[in-house]
């Protein structure tokens, strides 16, 4: 897994440049300027938008403010989906920045879960981690951890601390030497074309005759309308947190993370790292969707 450290870091530090605009019907005391922010792909909207909330509440009266919610082109954004997933699903083929509309009234009860506090986000996140471990290890690893380890996992995500997070997460990504992988692969496939929110089924990483399953095998079995590359599952799973597979309705249906692989092949992680090392500072960034962002983008 050390070979994949670059990919682990790429996944963790992925950012989406976003422009937040207040909904035009919100009542303000003076005009609200848009707010720009680089959103972490692996986090959740309500966890990283305190500054956005503060910015708009400055121009509003307290009585006109209730629970904040976000919308993109008329679709309420589910805060409990990772940001990267929301972007890939809804906006990946549009030009950057991602334009999100901010609302403070008329909460869409039928579409969105409430998010009254950070505790709710933590509970949701831990619930996902726990469910994934139920599939990978029959919950043995997560249940053997102490409360402080669970807390560290959450704090690592909340405070964008890669090392802090992975110190614990690596235990959740291990499997016994005698096995060839997890018990079942924790995955969810999201598509905009289907009514159900996602596809989730039991799927073993190894076939009955000992062959390693590939991502293609998985997709063939649970989502035959998609096309996939021939990449062995254990490699995929050792560093891909379960929810980073997002299938877009546009184009090839490939998980967005893998689109680059179509052109560059499996050696991308080393090549990508080298490219970044060679890139000169101040290089103009192109506003091309699906491109990986570099440190230079942080000046956005």
């Amino acid at each position: 897994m050390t070979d994949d450290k670059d990919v682990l870091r790429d996944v963790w530090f992925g950012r989406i440049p976003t422009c937040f605009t207040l909904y035009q019907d919100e009542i303000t005391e003076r005009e609200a300027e848009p707010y720009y922010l680089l959103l972490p792909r692996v986090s959740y909207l309500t966890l990283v938008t305190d500054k956005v909330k503060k910015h708009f509440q400055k121009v509003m009266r307290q009585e006109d403010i209730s629970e904040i919610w976000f919308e993109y082109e008329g679709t309420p954004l589910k805060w409990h989906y990772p940001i990267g997933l929301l972007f890939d699903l809804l906006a990946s083929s549009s030009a950057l920045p991602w334009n999100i509309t901010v609302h403070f009234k008329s909460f869409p009860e039928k579409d969105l879960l409430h998010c009254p506090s950070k505790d709710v986000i933590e509970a949701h996140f831990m619930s996902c981690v726990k469910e994934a471990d139920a599939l990978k290890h029959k919950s043995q690893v997560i249940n053997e951890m102490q409360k402080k380890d669970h807390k560290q996992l959450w704090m690592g995500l909340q405070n964008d601390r890669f090392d802090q997070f992975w110190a614990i997460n690596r235990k959740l990504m291990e499997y016994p030497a005698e096995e060839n992988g997890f018990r079942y692969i924790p995955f969810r496939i999201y598509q905009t074309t289907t009514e159900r929110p996602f596809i989730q089924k039991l799927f073993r990483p190894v076939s009955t005759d000992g062959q390693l399953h590939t991502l293609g095998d998985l997709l063939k079995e649970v989502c035959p309308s998609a096309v996939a590359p021939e990449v062995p599952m254990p490699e995929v799973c050792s560093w891909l947190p379960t929810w980073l597979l997002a299938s877009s309705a546009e184009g090839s249906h490939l998980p967005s993370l893998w689109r680059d692989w179509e052109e560059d092949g499996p050696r991308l992680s080393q090549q990508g790292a080298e490219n970044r090392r060679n890139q000169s500072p101040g290089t103009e960034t192109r506003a091309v969707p699906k491109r990986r962002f570099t440190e230079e983008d942080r000046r956005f």
Partner: protein
Amino acid sequence: MEENEFFGEKTFQHYCAEFIKHSQKIGDGWEWRASKDCSDGYMCKTHFQVKNGTAVSHQGTSAHVQTFLPVEEALDPPLDDLEVTETTTAAEVIKYEYHVLYSCSYQVPVLYFRASFLDGRPLALKDIWEGVHECYKMRLLQGPWDTITQQEHPILGQPFFVLHPCKTSEFMTPVLKNSQKINRNVNYITSWLSMVGPAVGLNLPLSYATAASQDEGNVGGQGKKRSLCSTFPVAKILEPLLHLAMSPLLAPAFIKSAFISDRLDTDLFV
């Protein structure tokens, strides 16, 4: 954790089908809904309840209770025909939807539910909590994962409330083990729903118990009914549940493991 391949998705669907058969016989309103792609589905029921602080005339009971009291299942007579003996506050009718889905991650059934007023306004979590009886509340509040949270329905994609499933296997295993021991056929869904349902206002008529058991000749279960300590606060609420427990359907042993078990003096039920 013991390997429990026993309760796979096919088994779940089988027990749901049996459960629904009985529901149809007694007009209890449960039905099966397949997902659009028909690969899976869920069991569901909608019913209406009156929520108020005072009593509603129903089979002679007239105690003041905070919890929900069921009204007649089919709301065919218009609402103003509902008989209300005392009304100091306006009665509000709430529509409850209960969905039973299968979790392949935990390999157990999961209860999803939502409630709304007739005008479509949904009930908030705090309103739901008000309807949960005290004894269940205590236990549900203790464990962060044994509680009611709002989640996205995995098939419909809409917000529902859920009783977290991770402890289900723990309290269901003794039920199944015991039923194997005494050679009874147990409908997993019936047993499970009879335990978790009441916490959120969903009650099962006793006839499900007798329907599930295929060996009604055995007296062993019936004879064990004991008188309860009347000072035990939880006893009154559990009494209907205990009828189920003492029936051939469920052995008394289940109560030790039920998620409310730490509120009970288990010696009562040996």
